[in-house]
């Protein structure tokens, strides 16, 4: 363990929850708490001059929505893994965050050990996912080969697709690894890759939409 600990920034307006997460981070040897905020603005200001390995953020904040910071940070500091604090981990919220650039979520009611473990897993290349999210992703990625959009099905390798399907059916990482004859780490990294692709895809889709509407014509070379 010669690597320096991963720096974590916390953004959570509820004082008790914030303290809980702070203690979770502090109690893990591989993590260090760089900063902790209760509102969006100071957090945004901090990221102007600093970097972190992990951002743990709530969504409903007193001075704005966490999604704006996620979108911003995913563009400017792609090395920073963003995790969203969610009470229910419901699929719509999580997928919206993933599309904005988050790599996963943490349940508010997780045990301290779980919280730290999720953060470490994420740094090591995994991403949390639930069967409901997997189902939703499958649905979304299969549904729309809209004309001329970058084919979303191309986002999924056959192996990734298989992993998603098994997760959607309720199988755990270990079971999937056994079924596919690969390591659990490989299975986990599929998910993180997939999240990344989804964020890129959602951005490229936005670009595509913009092109279609003629917004980017003036930016083309030769114009």
């Amino acid at each position, binding site marked *: 363990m010669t690597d320096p600990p991963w720096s974590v920034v916390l953004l959570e307006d509820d004082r008790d929850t914030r303290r809980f997460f702070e203690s979770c981070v502090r109690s893990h040897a591989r993590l260090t708490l760089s900063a902790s905020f209760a509102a969006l603005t100071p957090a945004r200001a901090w990221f102007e001059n600093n970097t972190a390995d992990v951002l743990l953020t709530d969504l409903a904040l007193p001075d704005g929505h966490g999604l704006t910071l996620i979108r911003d940070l995913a563009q400017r500091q792609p090395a920073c893994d963003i995790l969203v604090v969610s009470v*229910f981990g419901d699929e719509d919220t999580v997928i919206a965050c993933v599309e904005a650039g988050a790599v996963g979520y943490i349940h508010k009611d997780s045990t301290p050990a779980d919280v730290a473990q999720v953060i470490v897993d994420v740094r090591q290349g995994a991403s949390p996912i639930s*069967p*409901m999210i997997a*189902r939703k992703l499958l649905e979304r990625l299969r549904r729309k080969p809209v004309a001329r959009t970058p084919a979303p099905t191309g986002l999924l390798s056959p192996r990734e697709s298989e992993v998603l399907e098994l997760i959607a*059916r*309720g*199988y755990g990482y270990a079971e999937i690894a056994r079924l596919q004859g690969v390591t659990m780490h490989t299975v986990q990294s599929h998910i993180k890759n997939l999240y990344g692709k989804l964020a890129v895809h959602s951005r490229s889709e936005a670009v595509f939409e913009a092109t279609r509407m003629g917004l980017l014509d003036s930016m083309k070379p030769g114009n």
Partner: protein
Amino acid sequence: MPARGFALYGVLCLAACSEAAQAAPEGTIELDRATFEATVNDWPQPAREIHLPLHWDVVYRGRSGTARLTIPFPRPSANTVDEPHMLFIARIANAYSVELNGTVLATAGNLRAHGEAWSAKQPITISFPADLLHDQNELTILLRGDAGRRAGVAPIMLGPSRLVEPHYTSAYAFRVLVPWVATTFSALVSAFCGLLWLQQREKLYAWACIGEAVWALVVLDITMEWTPLRWHVWGALLFALRAVWVWALYVIIEQVFGTRPARERAAVQGLLWAAPFCALVLAFTGSSIPARLLRALLSVLSATISLRLTFGLRKQATTERVLLALGLMALLVAGVHDAIASQFVSSAFGELAWAKYVGMLLGLTIMWVVSKRFRLARAEALQLQESLAQRVQQKERELRESFERVSQLERARAVTAERERILRDMHDGVGANLATAMRQLEGGTAPAAEVAATLRESLDHLKLSIDAMNLPSGDVNALLASLRYRLERRIAQAGLTVDWQVDELPHWERGTDQAMRHLQFLLLEAISNALQHAQASTLTLSARSEGPKIEISVRDDGCGGCVDASTGLQSMRERAQAIGAQLTVEDANPGTRVSLTLPMPA
């Protein structure tokens, strides 16, 4: 319009009276004295001197016969040998033969065939060479007179063609062209009313159309040289048609003046019903007595009605009433005049009947009345249409509103149902857990870990409830996966490992939102039982589709025999029944197996 109408009346009345007696011009002679020898009903009558015109119906009323008229005359003063000469007779009927000094100049019709088609109603001219004339001449006319057919001879004009011809032209204009104009006019009015009737089935239009059509035919008859039928039949037909015309006029009067008194109506109807019989008598026996009697009665009745209507104007005078009353009065006057002229006054033979002009006036009035009615009716129809459109709009609006209300109610009902469901879930799930946690805390004896476990369970319930709201209907795979995901930690904490054997399952057709909730609770109960009571090490959950069914089983390898004691069993059975599933709880030795078979439609 009324002012113009009156002006037209004036002009036409003047025209009607314009044929004044014309003196024979210089160079021509008028022959109006004749020796008249008639044979009536095969009985020769004594010869006698008469003045022309000869009006057969006046001399031998209701009888037919033949006659020879001998007219001696001197050489006309302006006679020159090299100039063509001409005879002009304004009217000579019915069949005739004209001889001058023994030379036949013209014949028309059959002198012996009484009642034949030949009718001879137009003025004639007969040209002849001047050298036929001597110092003393004799013009002989052989004549056939049919009863009631206005037979006779008008005064004869004789002279050089250039002098006589203008008289003929003017007589032709008045006696032929004017009736044709009147006929055409009536036919046009009739067509106009007929067209209106095609658009709006109004009694007034129909009778105006019929009346004017009949009138056109009756006026046309004035100029017909031959009739389409034999005289008795044709005369009877004309007579019957006149009755139709009277009825049409009466209907129009009722439309304009309102319903007439019942007695008057009955009188008119009675007389008109008698018309066909009179016509039949006329057609088959040739007797015109009933017809003439009927005509006289009708005339009296018409006069009475016209006068009553005219006097009635004092009470309520509208333009159309005034015009119609005036037309009727004019018709009355013309009718009296014509009747006297044609029936009683011998000298009036060949004069023009006034009725045709008055008929035109009446036609104008009728057209005006009809077009005014049509305008009014059209305006009414437009208004009706507009109000109808408004009503349709109104109804549409009401329908929309009521639909809106119904769908609001429907939404409200759905919201209420959903609320009730959530409340029940909270009551059974989270509420029960929270109450338990509360009791544990208040009792003060339960260790913190136990309270925490209860609260976690409560949170799990809450998450499951939220999952259930998002579960796609009929997707049993999703339901099972969410159940495992939410309960994973509890299962792990209970020290159990999960053996997950879930196949890809078909869509569960009966899996409504409600059914999915029941299934979720049922499985949750089964798993909770295994966690709490079984003291097992492995929890096996398998799901596969077997033919038309989905089979799900929850099995633990614990002590078994503890499910019966569970309070949840009753609830599980109820839920299984609610979704039509078959529930089996059995000893798996070791442990307990809860099996559930979901029915699938064939």
